[in-house]
Structure formats: C-alpha cells, structure tokens
C-alpha cells in the first residue's frame, strides 16, 4: 500500500511538472495565433488585410498576467477544458483530441504490446540458442531494424507495398466513405488500413526488445538458480521460461515503460507519413500552425499516457516481482 501511495505521489508530482512545462513551452514561441491562421491562409494566395482583423476578433488574445494565465490554465486542465483550437476554430480541443486519441491508442498500444511480446520471445530464444542461427538472425536483424528511422521504414513500406504493389491503402485509418462505428466491416477496414503503420512500428521497435531481452536473458542464464535448475534436471523449457526468462523480463519491463515514450514519438512520424488521424499527426499540425491550445493538450495527453503506462508497468513490476512486495 505504501509502495502504491509513493508511486501515486511521484506520478502526481511528475504530472504537475509536465503540465507546467507544457504551459511554458508554447508561450515562449514567437508568432500569435492570428499570425498562424493568416500564414495558413496565405498558402492559398494573398490574404486581404481585413482578414486579419476578423481573425484576431475570432480568436481573441490571451489576457492577464502570466501567473493568472497559469492559474487559469491549471484550473482548465483539471477540468479537462483545453479551450478552442486555433487551427480548427471553432472546434474545441477536447473534441479534436477525443477523435484522434483512440486511433493512436489502439495503433500504438496494440503494436507496442505485440512488439514487446514478440521481441521478448525472440530475445529469449536468441539467448537460449546462443551461437546458432536462431540467435544470429534475430540479433543481427534486430540491430539493423532498430537503427532504421521510423519515417524511412514507413516511406519504404508505403512506396513498395502501398503504391507499387497496391496491396494496402496509402493513407488514413479507414476507407473514405466509412463512418467510425462498431461493425465488422468497419473494424476490418480499419484493421486493413492499420497494417502498414503497424508493421512500420513493429519492425522499427522490435529490435530494441530483442536485444534488450537477449542481454538480460544471457545475464540470468549465468545466474546460479538457472544452473541449479539445470542441475536438478528440469525440462529445458521450464528452465528457459520459468527460471531464466521470468527473471530476465523484470528489468526489461522497466525499460519497456521508458521505451514507450520512444514508440509514441515514432508513431508520430509514422502517422505523418500515413496521414493517420492520430494524436501524432494532430500534434504536428498544431506545431506547424502554432496552435497553442491544441499543442498543449496533445503534448499533455501524450505525456500523461506515457506516464500512466509507466505507472502501470511499475505496478505490474511490483506484482511480478515478489521482492518488491515487502
């Protein structure tokens, strides 16, 4: 219980720091939202001078001292009120985030878990069959794949599988005419659209898990309880999984939590390449358009998700490792 309370306290403190950082960063940027809106319109040709006045009137300008703004901001954050997006005016930030979040959550969440599970299994296998091709293949492959830039993998897949071969759609999360709903057709459609982005994230993040698991696993294989288990004539499978892997996975779990941030970041690039309607793409749009409210909300959401995931991983760690239970 104390363990839990301590973790929750740390979580809250980290949250507060993230929220505050989040308040500060966009405020340091030059350019007002109206400038951003005009700049966006200007890409379609010259903007008439009168437009500016109208836009400024629409968006309003933040008022009050920085401290008041900060308090107001904290107050709003607590109520999940992030205001109105500048770019998508008059759309509320909350609704924008609301539509984008599920896509990223499902895509990143699902793929990350799959990558973690596969990578871990491959890492166990590689360590167990050290020196054989079962080791070399995943290790070398993993080393290479983890060095691929996310967006590059995405572009190559997009080109070869999406464009040249035409097997997969090249953009979006579901067919153009489909409406998000819980029907078999739609889910299939969404699944079909997610194959390329998912594969990208999978390929690019798999290597890290493989290598990480392999090296901790090799370490545990040298541990005395593994030798002792072998000396006792346990089934090799039992030794590999219940003794070596079961212990090796613990330190990996922590890095899993921390690596999540990387995957989320990577998904941002992937979403950009595949025009996937997730928070990553939205964040990119927000940054390019200097959309403070949207940017703040998204950055916060991303941070909170990663924080929460880490928190869950921590708790999970506590459950899996009897030593921390005391």
């Amino acid at each position, binding site marked *: 219980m104390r363990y839990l309370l301590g973790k929750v306290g740390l979580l809250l403190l980290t949250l507060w720091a993230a929220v505050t950082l989040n308040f500060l960063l966009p405020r340091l940027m030059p350019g007002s939202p109206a400038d951003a809106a005009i700049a966006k319109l200007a890409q379609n040709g010259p903007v008439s001078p009168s437009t500016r006045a109208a836009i400024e009137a629409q968006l309003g300008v933040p008022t009050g001292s920085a401290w008041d703004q900060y308090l107001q901001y904290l107050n709003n954050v607590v109520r999940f009120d992030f205001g109105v997006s500048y770019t998508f005016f008059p759309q509320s930030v909350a609704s924008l985030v609301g539509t984008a979040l599920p896509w990223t959550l499902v895509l990143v969440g699902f793929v990350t878990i799959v990558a973690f599970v596969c990578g871990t299994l491959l890492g166990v296998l590689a360590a167990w069959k050290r020196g054989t091709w079962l080791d070399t293949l995943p290790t070398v492959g993993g080393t290479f794949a983890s060095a691929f830039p996310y*967006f590059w993998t995405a572009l190559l897949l997009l080109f070869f599988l999406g464009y040249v071969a035409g097997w997969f759609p090249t953009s979006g999360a579901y067919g153009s005419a489909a409406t998000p709903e819980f029907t078999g057709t739609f889910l299939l459609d969404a699944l079909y659209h997610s194959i390329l982005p998912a594969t990208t994230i999978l390929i690019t993040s798999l290597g890290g898990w493989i290598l990480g698991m392999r090296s901790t696993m090799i370490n545990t294989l040298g541990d005395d309880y593994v030798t002792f288990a072998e000396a006792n004539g346990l089934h090799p499978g039992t030794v590999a999984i219940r003794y070596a892997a079961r212990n090796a996975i613990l330190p990996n779990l922590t890095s899993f939590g921390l690596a999540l941030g990387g995957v989320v970041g990577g998904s941002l690039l992937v979403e950009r390449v595949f025009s996937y309607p997730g928070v990553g793409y939205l964040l990119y749009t927000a940054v390019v358009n200097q959309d403070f409210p949207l940017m703040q909300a998204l950055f916060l959401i991303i941070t909170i998700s990663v924080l929460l995931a880490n928190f869950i991983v921590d708790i999970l760690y506590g459950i899996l490792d009897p030593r921390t239970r005391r």
Partner: protein
Amino acid sequence: MTPTGTTRPATSAVKTISRGHHDAGANPLRVILRAFLTIWSVPKARIGVALLGVFVLLAVFAPVLAPYGATDNSFDRSEDMSAAHWLGTTAAGQDVLSQIIYGARVSVFVGFVAGLLSTIIAVLIGLSWGYLRGLAGDVINFIVNLFLVIPALPLMIVIAAYLQNGGIGMIVLVVVITGWAWGARVLRSQTQSLRSRDFVTAAVFSGESPARIVFREILPNMTSLIVGSFFGASTAAILAEAGLEFLGLGDSTTVSWGTMLFWAQNSNALLTGQWVLLFAPGLCISLLATSMSLINFGVDGLSNPRLREGAQR
C-alpha cells in the same frame, strides 16, 4: 534486498573492472587505445568500427570525394542513375551522390557533438547525483525521471518549434536537452554501486575531497559505461536529427540525410519513381546508427564479460 554477506559479487565485479582495464595507467592516450583494442576484439564491434570509419572518412573528405558540390543545382532535374550521376539527381537538379557524401558531415557532426554533450551532462549529473545524498539527490532524481518519462520526440518537436531556424546548432541543443537523462540514470546507478565500494571509502580515509573522489576514483572506473552511453546518445541524436529534418523542423537548406529525405518526400520522389532518393539517405542513416549499435556490443563486452560470446558462467 540482496542477501547479506555475499562478498562474491563484489569481488567478481572488481575482477571485471580489472579485466577491462589491463594496465590502464594514467595516460589517457593509452586508456583510449586500450578501450579501442577491447572494442576491436569483438567481431561485431569491429564491423561497427569499420563502418563508422567509412562514414567519418566520407564526412571529413567530402569535398574531395564528392563528384560535385552539395548545393550545385545546375543539372537536369530528377534524372535517373547514370554514369555522370551514379544515384541520379534531385528534383532541384542536385547530384544525389554528392549530397549523400556531404550529408555524412551533418549526421556525423550531430552524432558526435550531441553525443558528446549529452554524455558530458550525463556524466556530470549522473556522478554528482550518484554521489550526493539527501535533498539534492532527490531533486535531481525527480528531474531525471521527468526527462526520462516525457516522450522525447514530441518534446523535441515542441522545443524545435520554439527554437526555430537555429539550424544544426538548434538540433544539437534539442537532442541534448532530451537525450542526457538516460545516460545520467545509468551512470548514477553505477556511481552508487561504486560509491559503496571499499576503495571509495578508502579514499575518504586518505583525505580526498569529494570532487576528487568522484572524478579520480569513480569516473575512470566507468569508462566503458561512458563510452557506451556516448554511442547510445550518438545513435539517438542521429535518428532524432533525421526525424526533425524530415518533419521540416530544421533548416531545410543544409544538406543532410534528413533534409534529403524531406526534399525527396516534398518533391514526391516516389511518384517520379526515384525511390533511390528516399532509399539512399535512409540507408545511410540506418547504417551509421547500426555502426554505433555494433560498436556498443564491444563496449558491452568491455563492461560485462558475461556478454562476451560463449561465456556462460
């Protein structure tokens, strides 16, 4: 948590250290040579060192090696591969091969400088954090955890948007800001374990000042970790630079592999069938990053003999 009275791990750890640093005297050149040889002795790392060497040579001798100037756009646009342009030309009429060669400069530079800076910060913070107790330690602990948990790329994007148009310097800064925490954490835990080592206590008895203990007693024992975290940070920096440039958040006029990808995407290289425009810079980024990971295998071996192939117990 660990059983009391287990003196074995302690001794074996000491052996580990001495194995990694035979004859590592005070002469830093010899230390470096030693480290290099240790890394070189691992086949994977050897490949990495060779690969990295190629890229460094490319970067250093780019003006000599490149057939044309990096920004020379006097050629026909979007040419296919030919004898004159081995990898074709870009949509702006630049020679792709020359750009690749010049691009190595940015990646190698960013990798090196950002890796070095974040390693220095990681060392300073990691060591003082590991050595200090009490409130200061707690505060640093909190800050590092914060930086560890906050997803780096979104943070980078937000910071990059703020520090706009700083070019490579900005990218280095952003990468350093978001990249030092991991190394600091690793070094901290190593410092903590070294701090409780007898030879550190012995140094206190020898009347050494805390700074001297940290930098003369503890630091040299972490060479392998520091080298490892340098290569890790470099890899991350190279990938981050490419990512930011690709998103157009850097300076698109510099010639780097990231901007090449940005321009390739911008001019729809895929549509014109010039997949080389995408493939070549991306492959270079991957290979450079791979070379660092490969070298890290050697560094791992240096810090943990168990990871050496074949050794099981």
